[in-house]
């Protein structure tokens, strides 16, 4: 982890760190990276990937479309809606 990567993380997480906090975080990540380097020495080739801590699987539903939800009811709390659309300040990608 270098200073540039830390800045990116800071921005993505909408944080504002002081210089002291940045140094502390860099030290923290450096330590974690060395811990991971030790773990990486283990041969995990034949170990099945753990996707969940509990041996459970999701329920699924059949592909049946239900009656439409009441649109007006759904838009009742919207700050701005017209012509069946939700309205937001103009955005153009």
């Amino acid at each position, binding site marked *: 982890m270098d200073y540039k990567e830390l800045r*990116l993380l800071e921005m*993505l997480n909408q944080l504002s760190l002081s210089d002291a906090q940045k140094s502390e975080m860099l030290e923290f990540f450096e330590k974690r990276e060395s811990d991971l380097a030790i773990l990486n020495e283990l041969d995990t080739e034949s170990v099945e*990937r753990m*996707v*969940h801590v509990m041996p*459970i*699987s*999701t*329920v*699924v*539903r*059949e*592909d*049946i*479309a*239900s009656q*439409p*939800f009441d*649109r007006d009811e*759904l*838009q009742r709390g919207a700050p*701005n809606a*017209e*012509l*069946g*659309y*939700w*309205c*937001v*300040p*103009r*955005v*153009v*990608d």
Partner: protein
Amino acid sequence: MKYEVVIGLEVHVELSTKSKIFCSCSAEFGAGPNEHVCPACCGMPGMLPVVNKRVVDLGMTAGMMLNCHINRTTTFDKKSYYYPDLPCAYQTTQWFAPVAVNGYVEIDTPSGKKKVRIKQIHMEEDAGKLVHDIAPDTTHVDFNRTSVPLIEIVSQPDLSSADEVIAYLERLHSLLRFARVSDCRWEQGSMRCDVNLSVRPEGSTKLGVRTEIKNMNSLTAIARAIEYETARHIDAIENGTEVLVQETRRWDDAKGKSFSMRTKETAGDYRYFPDPNIMPIVIDDAWFDEINASLPEFPEVKRERYITELGLSEYDADQITSSRALCDCFEDAYSVCGKAKDCANWIISEVMSILNSKKMTFDMLTLDGKALGALINLVCDGTVGRANGKKVLLAMFDDASIDPKKYAEENGFIVSNDTSLVESVVKKVCDSDPQTVADIRGGRDKAIMALFGRCMKELRGNCDPQVLRKALMDYING
């Protein structure tokens, strides 16, 4: 210096389901704004997703059709980005354990077969639609498309020309439609692709700067965009006309140019993390075997079988294998009448013609193939004339429950074996046109067709053409 282009594709395909991926709203295209929405797909607080099993079925089917390994435990993850078309501010997709990985498809190139590797196929939800042209300062948001199920097929960068890209996309289109994974309609956006492209000196192993052209939905536009982008990269490398940067670009087909949209995001920007609301999907042996057993015969295998085993011409086999629905209809008809060539002729000439006149695609065909086989038998054994057979077929399109023989009987389409009736009609028609009869007697053999047509009309098409021809010749020569 010679250059080579390196292309990888991300193809989004909307799945053929009735309902959305995580809620039971309709996934149908074409409704009014926000008519197919509910608190779950609108991202209301507290709403939990429930996975549509059919989506997993189709994800597995696509994986198997593209020779992938199916991950028997597959998971959903959250991909964070904030934009008004995504009400949760994250997209539920697959990052850590996609449903299918490490596959390939083969395409034909001028230098022979080429294997294009598939990195992964993942299931995900689509985003909503933004409308910018209703009011000047407002964007209108339609969430009908939100949570409509997609698969994204990610290829390795194995493609090296626009022609190869088109061949690859056509192959995907054919396989996915054959397996009924999707209707793959480019014009409706149910198939669209992002093109990742870079250019490097020929023979180099180091990849050049990569740009991504987003949301392409026509093969012609894709080919043009690749040609343009390749030339732009080479120009930048050779002449320094601009500095190439890794970025996302938009193709403007009217202007024939690509334009920068934004610098390219990397995976870290999206902060992927496992979706805590959806437990892992475990595909057991029974589920896997059920999907595996449901896979269709590949179109090229069918084509070969139709030619070698059933004696169809290459043209006929190509036409029929262009659609799974046509193949099913053909095979059902053949199973009843056993006349492969006649079945092919009826499908290619009559069935396709009716579909075209009704502005239906081949995949929309719902005609009962076994009933078509019965009709072909009636025409081939002379019970119903060909012209009346077409009328029966047209009625069968409108009412799938029609029994061809019963319908022919009820509508007077059964060919008469009453020779005295045929002879009386021949006499009537010939006596009303002595000049034509004289012409035929004088050697104008072709003139007999005029009398033949009038007799057939009098008989309402219900006569064996051979019987009528003989009766005419006997009368004229006798």
